[in-house]
Every structure is written in structure tokens, then in C-alpha cells.
């Protein structure tokens, strides 16, 4: 048999975003792969230091990625507040944490549903998305929009939450937990689903450390890395954060780690809603950002890194963004070699790739 070159993307049914791979295959086994990840490059870093003032930056960086908009906006807000020496009160911290965790739930559910679809379980995809609508309702009630929230502003959050919304959120989260447990049980016990996902695209712990992976991909291989535990930006430990680890390192384990994190996030959200401190939802802001700061936050896909430098002007001097998917691309290329072409879709989507983050 000769070699066959199979293009995958940039427009493909399994991919919501443009990314293109060229697979060179021999008897369905992939022997060589070329990736092109630059389709979504818009030049946000350049625009952040030329077109936009520092007060507008959270709105711009939220548009880096729709799925983890809250983490990008949150990172910028946290960095600028550090530069301007703003202390926020506990209520603001808790409200921010609540939305960050709700965002993580909806992002993880989307990723898991997507993996289910490409391995041939359209029904499971539908069930996962049905469960996901509950958390979208909660997010809409708290922030006012389903996808782009623009919730975190410098020195506070955009709107306060009353007890009516808190009750609504608690009810929805309880329903969500039941639904997630049902879907998770199916993942755990179904034999055919296991055939398509167990032992596919295995990353060992050593490999994960060597290629410097981030987020659920690393934690599914047993590598304990999570910015929520390592970097102090929001009080996650107070509300019951626990690191979730699995040791298998295959497509199935990456899905299960995401389910574990969803359950942990639901628990954290319930704790936040039960013990929400009193206080203002905005504090007074004075001055301009001056100096430089490094911020690390945990996006749904792993560590998101921001470097900000300002010199007391309205426009920042430098905004550098490094996102989790970018860290995971090298090992993705390594995994394809020797894998079957029919597994390629499941391997890509189990990484939960976010190209609009990667290319910016």
C-alpha cells in the first residue's frame, strides 16, 4: 500500500473552529502529521497596546475566547488591580469565583459532549447538552448573557446578585448534579464506549511532565498541576477546592477528570451560594497602572498566563498572553504518530482544543 495524505480541516464537521492537520497515512496508521494552527490569528496582543485603554482591556481579552472569556477577563482585571493596589472585598471575590466555576462547568460539559459525538454516540452528546442548559440558565440569571459575560470589571463585578437568583441557582445546580451523575455513570460502565476511548491516545506521567502539558490533560495522566492550588488569586481552598487526578492518561480518563472537576465545581458553587459574604459589589478605583506583573489563572483547559506592563499611561506597554491549548499542541502531534486515523478525531477533541485562544 502506498501513502495516502488525508486533510483534516480547516473546515470539518467535527471541529467548531478552524485548525488544519495533514495526515500522512499508511494502511490507516498515521505516519506523519503537519498542523497549521494560525487560522484564527487576529492580532489581539498588538491591538491591546495600541487601540484600547486599560479600562477597556477586560472587554477585549474576553473576546480572545468565547468558552473561557471569564478567565481571560479575570486575569487582566486581577493584574491591573495588582498594579493599581486595589483591594477588593470578600463578596467580590466570591462572586467572581462563582462565575469562574460555572464557566468551567459549561466548558467541560461541552468538551465531554463533543468527544461523545465524534466516537459515535450522538444520543450521549444530546444528553450532555441537555444537562448543560441548566448551567447556562444560571449564568444568564447572574450575568445577563449566555456566552460573553463581561462580568468582571476593574474594582468589582458588573452587577450584584440577590437572594432570589441564589435560590434559583441552587435549584438548578441540584438538578444539574443529578444529570451529570447519570451521564458520568454511562461513561463509566458502557462497554462499547470504552472500546472507542479506553487505551486510545495514552499519555504517561513522564511524557506529560516532559512535554509540559497543562490542565485536565496533565491531571488525567496523574501529574498534579493546577493553578488554583499554586497561585494565589482567588480563595478557592476556602470553598472546598480539591485537585482531581486520574492515572490512565487516555481519552476516557481525560473525560472522567473533567466530570470529576464538574462535580467538584458544583460543590464549590453550592458552598459559595450558601456562605455569600455581605458587602458592596464595587470598590472605588483611583490612579493608573504602573509597573509590571505576571498573572496565572486556571482556565477550563489549564494554565493561562498573562504578563502586563504599564507606565502610568492610559494604554498599556505590553500585554502577553500564553494559553493552555498552546502548551498542549506538541504532545498532540506526538500522539498522532502510530494511531489509527479513525481515532484522530477523538484524540483531538479529548484535548478540548481552543484555537481562538491559541492563535489569538
Amino acid at each position, binding site marked *: 500500500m502506498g501513502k495516502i495524505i488525508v486533510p483534516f480541516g480547516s*473546515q470539518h464537521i467535527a471541529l467548531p473552529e478552524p485548525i488544519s492537520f495533514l495526515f500522512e497515512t499508511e494502511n490507516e496508521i498515521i505516519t506523519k502529521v503537519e498542523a497549521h494552527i494560525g487560522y484564527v490569528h487576529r492580532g489581539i496582543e498588538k491591538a491591546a497596546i495600541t487601540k484600547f485603554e486599560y479600562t477597556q482591556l477586560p472587554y477585549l481579552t474576553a473576546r480572545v475566547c468565547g468558552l473561557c472569556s471569564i478567565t481571560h477577563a479575570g486575569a487582566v482585571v486581577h493584574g491591573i488591580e495588582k498594579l493599581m493596589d486595589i483591594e477588593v472585598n470578600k463578596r467580590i471575590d466570591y462572586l467572581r469565583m462563582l462565575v469562574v466555576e460555572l464557566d468551567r462547568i459549561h466548558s467541560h460539559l461541552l468538551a465531554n459532549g463533543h468527544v461523545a459525538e465524534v466516537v459515535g454516540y450522538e444520543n450521549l452528546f444530546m444528553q450532555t447538552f*441537555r444537562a448543560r*442548559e441548566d448551567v447556562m440558565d444560571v449564568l444568564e440569571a447572574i450575568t445577563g*448573557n449566555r456566552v*460573553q459575560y463581561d462580568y468582571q470589571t476593574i474594582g468589582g463585578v458588573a452587577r450584584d446578585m440577590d437572594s432570589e437568583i441564589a435560590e434559583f441557582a441552587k435549584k438548578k445546580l441540584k438538578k444539574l448534579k443529578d444529570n451529570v451523575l447519570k451521564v458520568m455513570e454511562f461513561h463509566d460502565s458502557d462497554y462499547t464506549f470504552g472500546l472507542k476511548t479506553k487505551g486510545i491516545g495514552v499519555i504517561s506521567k513522564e511524557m506529560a511532565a516532559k512535554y509540559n502539558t497543562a490542565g485536565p490533560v496533565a491531571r488525567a495522566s496523574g501529574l498534579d498541576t493546577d493553578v488554583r492550588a499554586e497561585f494565589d488569586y482567588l480563595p478557592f481552598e476556602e470553598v472546598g477546592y480539591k485537585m482531581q487526578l486520574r492515572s490512565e492518561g487516555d481519552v476516557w480518563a481525560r473525560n472522567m477528570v473533567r466530570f470529576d472537576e464538574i462535580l467538584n465545581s458544583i460543590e464549590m458553587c453550592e458552598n459559595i451560594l450558601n456562605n455569600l459574604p455581605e458587602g458592596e459589589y464595587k470598590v472605588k478605583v483611583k490612579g493608573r497602572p504602573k509597573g509590571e506583573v505576571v498573572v496565572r489563572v486556571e482556565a477550563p483547559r489549564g494554565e493561562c498566563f498573562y504578563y502586563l506592563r504599564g507606565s502610568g499611561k492610559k494604554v498599556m506597554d505590553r500585554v502577553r498572553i500564553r494559553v493552555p491549548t498552546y502548551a498542549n499542541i506538541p504532545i498532540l502531534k506526538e500522539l498522532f504518530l502510530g494511531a489509527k486515523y479513525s481515532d484522530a478525531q477523538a484524540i483531538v477533541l479529548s484535548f478540548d482544543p481552543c484555537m481562538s485562544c491559541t492563535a489569538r
Partner: protein
Amino acid sequence: MGFFSKFRKKSPWILHYNTGGCNGCDIEILSALAPRYDIERFGMLNRGNPKQADILLVTGPVTKNCKDVLRRLYLEMAEPKVVVAMGACAHGGGIFRNFYHVENGVNNIIPVDVWIPGCAPRVEALIDGMVEAIEIWQQKSKEKEYLRDHEKVIKTLGVEDDG
């Protein structure tokens, strides 16, 4: 009205392409396929093949890298076809207007029939736009104006340099 156009309105197939947006619209499209909103009740299915698709659903401000792909997808689709542009950045760039790698909106590249504004648009707005697209599509199917305009479209899109 031909024999097939009678049944065609019951199954408009969607081709979805993200031209460099933030992903927010794309996850709303996925939500539209899911049980809560269930866009399939209008016969719409998301199919990745431009040769079989009737409605091209475009999101994003069109980056320079995606420009050629978008044009080729449009040309590969069979007539009659409808283009729907979704999201604020598809309308002239939105927040990404005049960035160095952005082409400022979908209608700079291909003609657009239906606009769905918002960042990100709600799923109800998406469904509303798609229903409007079906009507325009049927109109096009009846009048066969694409036969008249074919030369002009090919000229403006520049097929020769497609290589």
C-alpha cells in the same frame, strides 16, 4: 416550481464555518442542535460538506488566513444558496475592526443575505435568522436569479487566481 423545490424547504442543510471569531457563536450553534432548542424541527442538520449544503452559516470577522477558505466554500456550494452572517464581528469586524490581520466582516468577501446581530446572539435570534434564511432560499429557488447573476458573482469573487 420544480418537483424537488417542493420538498427542498423541509430539509435545508447547514454548513458552518468559523472565520476567526471567539468561539462564542459556535457554541451557541451547538446549543441550537441540542434538545432544548432543537433546530432539527425545521429539517436543519449540520453537515460538513459544502457540496450538499444549502445554508452557509458564517461566524467571525474573517481573518486573512480564512479568507480564501471562505471564498472556496461559497463557490463549492450548489445553487440556490443562502449566506447567514452571525455575531457582531461578522458585521464589519465588531471589536476586531481594523486589526492588522482582519478583513472587516463577511460581506467584504462574499454576498450576505441574513444578518444575526449580537455578541453573542441568543439561540432564539439564531433560529429566527435561520427561518428567515429558508424564506429567502425558497424565493431564490423560484426566481432562479442566480442564473442571471452568475457571471457577475464569479467575476467579483475572482475564481481565476484560486489555484
